[in-house]
């Protein structure tokens, strides 16, 4: 179901959140990880995004808003509801498609980027619009 590129980005997002002892992995973590992926960069650049600005703003936002798991407490980093919705929607969209080619296309990064933008009151979608304006 997942393209190799998306899998790498997901792993990277999880690892980054886990290493920093972030309590949650959010949609912003995913977008930040996707900025290291050429396919995602191509899509974002085509929308007129400034990748460096986005990266800087995302890092700042994640540092400011993500709760940290206190030292001495054993807890796993958990995906936020928004993060789960982004993945679920993408899978819902590609599951009825029987054509293998379209399956690969929809399970790829650009499609996930599109799902992120539909999240309500989500900082990521605002940043994306801001950096493209």
């Amino acid at each position, binding site marked *: 179901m997942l393209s190799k590129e998306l899998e790498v980005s997901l792993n990277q997002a999880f690892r980054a959140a886990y290493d920093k002892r972030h309590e949650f992995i959010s949609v912003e973590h995913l977008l930040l990880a996707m900025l290291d992926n050429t396919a995602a960069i191509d899509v974002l650049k085509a929308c007129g995004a400034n990748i460096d600005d986005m990266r800087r703003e995302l890092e700042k936002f994640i540092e400011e*808003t993500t709760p940290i798991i206190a030292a001495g407490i054993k807890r796993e980093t958990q995906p*936020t509801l928004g993060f789960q919705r982004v993945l679920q929607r993408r899978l819902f969209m590609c599951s009825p498609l029987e054509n293998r080619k379209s399956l690969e296309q929809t399970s790829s990064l650009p499609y996930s980027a599109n799902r992120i933008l539909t999240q309500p009151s989500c900082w990521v979608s605002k940043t994306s619009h801001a950096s493209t304006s």
Partner: protein
Amino acid sequence: MTEKNTNKPSDDLAVKEAKPQLKRPPLFKVFLLNDDFTPMEFVIDILKRFFAMDEEKATQVMLHVHTRGIGVCGVYSRDIAETKVRQVNDFSREHQHPLLCDMDEA
């Protein structure tokens, strides 16, 4: 059959789309609501477990909920606030308590 564009060049006006007005999305506060059934110890446990409070702070917030009917546990981005609310409500139901957690724009 289509109508011909009869506008003269001098009538043309260059129109530029206005840049969208942007603002940071609001933060959301997560709060607990009082009820007559959930034990105080359970509320303190929730506050320590999900909102990283120490015993003293948790007791303070619990008493606030108890006396004023509502107590703010923290302020987060929407995505994180929503997840916290779900975690607390699920945990309460698992332990058969009717404690209600909700969120609102800060």
